[in-house]
């Protein structure tokens, strides 16, 4: 994760997005006015102190395609193994295939794991979308459903687990604790959201989310897989993550 090296080659649009603000002078008063004079609201849209905070036009709005065009993103369009001989247009088929068999990894961290299991059982059956065979080994899994609070002690193993999964792989953050820290945000041993240590494709809030919620998130993930048409930009990890993770 060489953020610094990539920062040098940022296009202006991206640089405008990530450059730290000089100072937050949000609302600029419209000039001086005498005491008692009627307040005249100037007929101009106010602009934020941070340029690029409110995208106007196409200058700071970054489309995924242009992102792929820039050298910011790793050129890596998920064609591995034997299917590499298939030319580009066949990616639609490949992505339909991947979308229809997303094998989750059989790993639960905490409370949400129970609801994850409940989503796979008879009442609400994840198998219908081909998501059922929970693989025990990360080598054969496609989706990592992080279900439950992530502690600092577990962060290393989880990151390693993520690294052990073969591409293409996706991560689903299930529950408030994994999205943002949730009810243990204040604690001394938890991580405020797993996107500090690993990329996340789909966030499913709720403490814990219902099984239907998980299934909805997984279907959203399938939609994502289908719409990206097999072009996977490298996930940008949240700013304040230690570089040695």
């Amino acid at each position, binding site marked *: 994760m060489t953020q610094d090296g990539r920062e040098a080659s940022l296009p202006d649009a991206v640089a405008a997005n990530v450059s730290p603000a000089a100072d937050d002078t949000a609302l600029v008063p419209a000039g001086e006015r005498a005491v008692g004079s009627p307040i005249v609201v100037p007929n101009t849209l106010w602009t934020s102190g941070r340029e690029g905070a409110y995208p106007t036009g196409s200058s700071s709005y970054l489309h995924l395609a242009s992102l792929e065009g820039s050298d910011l993103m790793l050129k890596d*369009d*998920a*064609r*591995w*193994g*034997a*299917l*590499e*001989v*298939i*030319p*580009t*247009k066949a990616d639609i088929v*490949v992505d339909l*295939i*991947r979308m*229809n*068999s997303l*094998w989750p990894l*059989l790993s639960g961290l905490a409370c949400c794991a129970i609801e994850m299991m409940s989503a796979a*059982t*008879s009442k609400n*059956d994840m*198998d*219908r*979308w*081909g998501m*059922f*065979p929970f*693989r*025990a*080994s990360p*080598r*054969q899994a*496609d989706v990592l459903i992080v279900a439950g609070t992530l502690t600092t002690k577990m962060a290393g193993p989880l990151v390693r687990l993520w690294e052990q999964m*073969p*591409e*293409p792989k996706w991560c689903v953050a299930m529950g408030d604790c994994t999205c943002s820290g949730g009810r243990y945000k204040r604690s001394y041993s938890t991580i405020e959201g797993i996107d500090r240590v690993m990329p996340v494709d789909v966030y499913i809030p709720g403490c814990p989310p219902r099984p239907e919620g998980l299934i909805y998130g997984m279907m959203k993930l399938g939609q994502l897989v289908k719409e990206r048409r097999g072009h996977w930009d490298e996930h940008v990890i949240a700013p304040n993550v230690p570089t040695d993770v």
Partner: protein
Amino acid sequence: MTTVSRSWGNMTTTGKVVVPLLLLVLVLGPIATVAIGSWIGPWIVGLASANLPIVRFLVAVTGVLLFSIPTAFIIIYMELKVIAFMNLRVGPDRVGPAGAAHSVVAGLKVLSKEDFSPNAADRTVFTWAPVLVFLTSVMTFLILPFGPDLVGMKLNIGVLYLFSIGGMTVVGLLLAGWSSFNKYSLLGGLRAAAQVVSYEIPLTLSVVGLILLAGTMNVYTLGLQQSGWFTNWYVFRQPLGALIFFIASIAEANRTPFDLTEADSEIVAGFATEYSGMRFGFLFFAEYVNVFLVSALITTFFFGAWNAPVDINAILGFFNIAPITISFELGTLGIALLIAIAVLPLILTLALAAPFYFGKTQRPAWQALVIGFILFNLVGIGILGLIAYVNVPWIAGITWFFLKAFAFVFVFVWMRGTFPRVRIDQLMGFAWKWLLPAALLNLFVTAAAIIVVKSL
């Protein structure tokens, strides 16, 4: 022009290599065809007719390879749906009719995953072990008699070949477990070795009695001997042998309750722990090919390989009816044949549509016609199928063979859905303390019976 250049830009390097090749093939294809038709073709034919067995062997191998993967897909889908039904679930139902294509999709997905091998693994062995496992399970198809004259090789030492090849599977599993450089894989491989080796013995011994009875080791001959009524099946002469063979073959195929080699809850995925992508796919398919294989073997050895349970000709003979053989020369019809082909569908469709149009249910004409046409097709297919069944013996044979084999596959899946897993010491104790003495007893009784009968 822009579209061409853009698509050219979108292609991967490999695509840029492949597409011109395709164009080249399109150009060179006709020329090559002409050449083959004129000069190379006859030479090949002469060569083939010169040494037929080799050609037959190659054809059989190709057919088996093409045949094994769809079988695995069918069994995987069957397992998904049957276990889902046993768990009060729906099972996959999104891709294909009733989710029939889900297993195919899973297989293609595995094909398109990253092909990974750990740093510390022994690359060569790690790469080739799954292929070995898959090949050993596929090679056994060569001697399976799917029907009369529908067999790859009529080996006269077929049973010997069978068990020698089946024993080679454990080598692949052991190599896979060892080369992964993972303790779980190592445990899985060693478990597989111990299990398969110790279950080979009762498996083989249970068939020796059968061989004594049959007096041959040719699997095709075994099938021939069980023709006629179902009482000729060897299961009624070797019940104990059949039982032992069934139990031992479960362990051979590493299925529940003997699936200690990939016990999820103990050793994560056994010998397959470190495998990903298509190598894992090989192991995955080999398991299911093995399931079909042992079911087919049970069918072949003990349940009358391709023979129908009832002997139609015997029944017909009992009623003094000549066996049905339609030796009707269509050429004798002459011009009437063309008329029949032109008119018969029309007449039959109208005839079948009539009751729906004039009957109580006053359907509109087009509906009645559609229904009539469908019925006509069904009837025609049924008649043709019946004729084929009666006149083409291998169609009947393959039908019955697959019916029986998939009945046993269903039993395997059923056990997968219901049984817990045995412990390793219970597994070994069962093999050596119960199955082996039982197999020896079976062998002894069979031999004694044969001697007694001969002495009479």
